[in-house]
């Protein structure tokens, strides 16, 4: 009887969004009279930071500081249509819709500025600080504040735009069954090191080293936050969490936090996160959807590490002490 060490590796290919009856998200953008911009969405910020990301995307597209943008989300009675926040689709689908809406709003903004400055709209650019300048003659400029006032009170224009991003439904080809159920693949690889006590069946994850390829990290600190939390959750899925420990028998499921196990702050594995940025062609400013992927590769990596440590393949999650001991017993009997 001994504590045995093992190391496992796993790599994954992760899709953004899914093939429903078409996968749409729409967005509206409009300016207030003082030149702030409002993004209206139905998509939901669950804490992953969607509001921040949509504000950044809108600000970048219109050419204003991020704090000039307000994002209103999550009311499906009043907001533009969104399929929802799932399948890691939020940043990708809503982000593309926001870019489209913001571009249209920017165009109106430049047209109004052009009338005020008596130049051609195509000769104008933004400085990212809230001003519109004539290209090559920056002394000729107008603030976005004044442009918005003019649009609202003088010229009767709405500085606004509509964004509609749709991935059409994909049907399988009759001959081959081939289809395109999702878009924009992210990737990840994890190496996990574990200790398995072959007397008690307990598995301890010592280290997880994760590499994530996520397109462009639109907000690097928030990406890191997602990945660190997700890596923890992956270990939790691998070793602890289940609502149905004896599935398909539904008895003995945890009903509350006393019984639904998760690793606490004392059970953390040493965690390393490396982010690779390969901007995606169809993503908003190159982003992909790393959301759920962050908790995926740890699971097979831990299962492989357990195999490496004690030579048993556990193919039912979570990898509980009971399952490890039963597998070791079966192995000894053979």
């Amino acid at each position, binding site marked *: 009887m001994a504590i045995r060490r093992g190391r496992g590796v796993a790599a994954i290919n992760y899709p953004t969004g899914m093939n429903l009856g078409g996968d749409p998200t729409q967005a509206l953008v409009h300016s207030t009279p003082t030149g702030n911009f409002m993004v209206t969405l139905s998509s939901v910020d669950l*804490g992953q930071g969607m509001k921040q990301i949509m504000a950044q995307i809108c600000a970048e597209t219109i050419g204003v500081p991020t704090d000039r943008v307000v994002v209103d989300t999550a009311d499906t009675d009043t907001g533009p249509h969104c399929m929802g926040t799932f399948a890691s689709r939020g940043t990708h689908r809503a982000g593309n819709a926001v870019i489209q809406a913001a571009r249209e709003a920017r165009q109106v903004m430049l047209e109004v500025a052009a009338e005020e400055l008596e130049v051609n709209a195509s000769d104008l650019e933004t400085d990212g600080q809230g001003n519109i300048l004539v290209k090559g003659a920056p002394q000729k400029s107008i603030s976005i504040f004044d442009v918005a006032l003019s649009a609202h009170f003088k010229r009767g224009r709405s500085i606004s735009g509509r964004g509609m991003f749709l991935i059409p439904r994909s049907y399988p080809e009759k001959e081959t069954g081939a289809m395109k159920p999702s878009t924009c693949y992210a990737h990840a690889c994890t190496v996990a090191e574990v200790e398995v006590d072959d007397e008690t069946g307990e598995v301890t994850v010592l280290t997880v080293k994760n590499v994530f390829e996520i397109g462009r990290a639109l907000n690097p600190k928030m990406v890191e936050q997602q990945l660190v*939390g997700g890596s*923890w959750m992956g270990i939790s899925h691998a070793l602890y969490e289940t609502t149905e420990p004896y599935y398909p028998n539904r008895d003995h499921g945890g009903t509350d*936090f006393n019984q639904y196990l*998760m690793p606490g*702050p*004392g059970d953390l594995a040493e*965690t390393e996160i490396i982010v690779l940025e390969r901007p995606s062609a169809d993503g908003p400013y190159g982003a992909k959807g790393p959301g759920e992927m962050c908790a995926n590769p740890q699971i097979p990596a831990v299962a492989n590490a357990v195999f490496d440590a004690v030579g048993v393949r556990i193919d039912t999650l979570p990898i509980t002490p009971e399952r490890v001991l039963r597998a070791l017993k079966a192995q000894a009997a053979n």
Partner: protein
Amino acid sequence: MAKIPVQFTLNGSEKAEFIDSGTTLLQALRDKIGDTSPKGGCHQGTCGACSVIIDGELRLSCLTLAETCNGATITTTSGLAEGGVLHPLQRAFLDTFATQCGFCTPGMIMAAKALLDHTPNPSRDEVVEALSGNICRCTGYEPIIQAVLTAARANSQNAA
């Protein structure tokens, strides 16, 4: 049923309420007084989201009867900022990105405050121990541990 009067100090101001016997402090704070910073995650003492400080000690407000708090001094997360300036713990939680959905955050901050009030320069193990009654679904805990250590460092620099 006869109502029971309770009176206590919440974040420096006097509160007086008539409550039904058996009302938890969590219910009294959230539903009667309107301080929604303590969260109800489990209502049975297993998640820590409802943590508050009563007379200097960390308590679970879901397991504390409001009627036992007569004359007590209670601190919640909503009482930490002073004049719009965030408490060092709140600042550190922001700076280390230690909050995602935020549901666990007020409880975490209370548990951390109770620790730092008694142990201004805790070791990592002491921080882990102090947070071990609080569940977080989002962060993987490491950023929260870092936030508490960061706040402790900021405090000791200010004191020096």
